[in-house]
């Protein structure tokens, strides 16, 4: 079963500290949403609130259109997968998974059958009589998932469930979580600080910082056209070049920087209301950088010197030093087959359509 989740003007304070500041959000039914942000951004607080473990200072939470703000966890159509899994150590896996069904009054044979089915769904068939301490971390997590799904919740909340797993296992579990979510159709809300994980599994990513939503959208949008500096910097490496807007027309925008004047199509503004004279940042990713000896259809940011190279398998990660503004370092991902013989004629080139322009200290939306 599934439902839409609406966060309506939620604000929460712990004493004098504002953990969440006027958060407004809608997550569609059946979506796999990821709350993404650094420690202390409020994502776990928000998740606790949706689950019913915390009462917000202000605002409402609606699930499937119903106001559940003051309902205890047991009365909400949500279940939570905890970070430490919280499997009941004294019960068998079958009893663990069937616990919620038992609380709803289901008979033993029925709930055992249901539990067996779920254990099979998560990849642990015939393990029902084992106890949690006999399992590995990854296996315990699957059982926790099965237990949470057993009661057919509308919303499944996951609190950084993959943090304790090693990389390979984490990738595997990400795929499995996605597959299971597609299969059962429940709305999943997943909390993590790992942006790679977010992009791997999310239908929609909600980037949070300092108790506020920075940007909510599909992964492509969040990565390629972020709304603000924080989102751009958090979703991977990004380069920022500051400048002032010289003029804006319906087709193009000219920006003056310390590295010359550059023209972009007006679409790079992402729909933001930016006017002449405003200070902005030109933002582009390391993979958008091209080193070349000629200008042309690219923005030419001037002469650079490569100061550092590290081979990352798929690319070379290089640090470039701009000759014009000596202190700024640009991060670039350069091809696998890199030849840096003649450094004197290297120039920093970026296709205008690869870049976006962000207002300084503000948001495009």
């Amino acid at each position: 079963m599934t439902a839409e989740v609406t966060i309506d003007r939620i604000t929460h304070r712990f004493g004098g500290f504002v953990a969440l500041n006027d958060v407004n959000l809608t997550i569609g039914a059946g979506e796999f949403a990821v709350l993404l942000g650094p420690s202390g951004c409020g994502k776990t607080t928000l998740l606790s609130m949706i689950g019913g473990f915390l009462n917000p200072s202000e605002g409402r939470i609606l699930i499937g259109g119903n106001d559940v703000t003051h309902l205890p966890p047991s009365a909400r159509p949500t279940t939570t997968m905890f970070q430490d899994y919280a499997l009941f150590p004294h019960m068998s896996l079958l009893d663990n998974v069937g616990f919620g069904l038992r609380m709803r009054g289901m008979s033993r044979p029925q709930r055992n059958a249901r539990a067996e089915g779920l254990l099979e769904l998560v990849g642990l068939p015939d393990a029902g009589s084992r106890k949690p301490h006999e399992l590995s971390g990854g296996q315990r997590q699957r059982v926790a998932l099965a237990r949470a799904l057993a009661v057919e919740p509308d919303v499944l909340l996951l609190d950084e469930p993959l943090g304790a797993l090693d990389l390979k296992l984490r990738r595997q579990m990400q795929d499995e979580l996605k597959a299971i979510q597609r299969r059962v159709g429940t709305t999943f809300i997943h909390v993590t600080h790992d942006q790679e994980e977010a992009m791997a599994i999310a239908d929609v990513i909600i980037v949070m910082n300092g108790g506020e939503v920075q940007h909510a959208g599909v992964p492509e949008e969040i990565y390629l056209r972020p709304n603000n500096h924080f989102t751009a910097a958090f979703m991977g490496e990004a380069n920022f070049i500051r400048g002032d807007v010289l003029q804006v027309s319906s087709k193009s925008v000219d920006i003056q920087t310390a590295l010359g004047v550059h023209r972009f199509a007006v679409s790079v503004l992402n729909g933001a209301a930016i006017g002449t004279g405003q200070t902005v940042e030109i933002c582009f990713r390391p993979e958008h950088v091209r080193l070349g000896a000629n200008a042309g259809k690219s923005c030419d940011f001037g002469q650079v010197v490569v100061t550092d190279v590290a081979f990352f398998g798929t690319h070379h990660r290089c640090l470039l030093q701009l000759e014009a503004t000596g202190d700024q370092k640009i991060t670039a991902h350069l091809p696998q087959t890199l030849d840096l013989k003649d450094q004197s004629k290297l120039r920093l080139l970026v296709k205008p359509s690869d870049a976006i322009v962000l207002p300084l200290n503000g948001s495009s939306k």
Partner: protein
Amino acid sequence: MTTPASMNKRERRKAFAFVLPAILWTVAFFVVPFGFMAAMSLWKRIGSKIIQTWSLDNYAGFFAKSHFVEGLANSIEITLIVTALSIVLAYPLAWIIAMQIPERWQRAALLLAILPFWTSYVVRSYAWMLVLARNGLVNQGLLYIGIIDDPLELGSTRTATVIGFVHFFVMLLTLTIYANLRQLSPNYARAAADLGAGPIRTFIHIILPLTIPGIMVGAFLTFALCIGDYITPQILGGNNELVLPQIIMLQIGRRADLPAASALAIILMLVVSLVYVLCARWLKLERA
């Protein structure tokens, strides 16, 4: 624990030298005395001499002497009552401290609960006499209010002994059960609530079963300490319904019958060992 380095002969000798003093002391002043006591239990006191009879008569004769058997029965009865009562009274207190009191006050609340632990054990039992004696606090209070006309016989009874014991072991068990409760991840209760269990069902199905090992350990400790105690029954129990330690002390003191005392002491130890084996077996079953 650290994995010690592998050993050559010189190092081994060095290591032994470190451990040797403690081993020697334990052997000399614990194992050997125990051996003496075991030997003594096989001898007899006849007249004013101790004859090395080397027989099991003291043990066989145990069941013949009714007041010995009664002593053991009293010991076991009282100890079981005390253990059960102490658990029932201590658990809610440990719960309240662990779950309902804010985190930074918990240590203070716990220390406060076990503070009287630190009165001298003898003095603590004596203090209960002040409360329970014929002219003690309780009686005078009840007389004053007018509930009773004559003072109740509270002190010098089995009840007084039980009260005195329960007072001590409630503090001990509060400590052990509290430690157990604190070890539990708070997510267990949250997960149970999340899945639809109310507070009572969460407690019955999740919290209580997870604290049973801690209760068992505390219960065994209570049993072993209570059944071997001489002081509290002697001060509070009066001279009726003696328990085994009192009988042992009688054999030592008044009758100077060390062989009998030794045999009784060994029987006491066997009872405690039996209970230990049962508890250990039970705990192992729980684990499996």
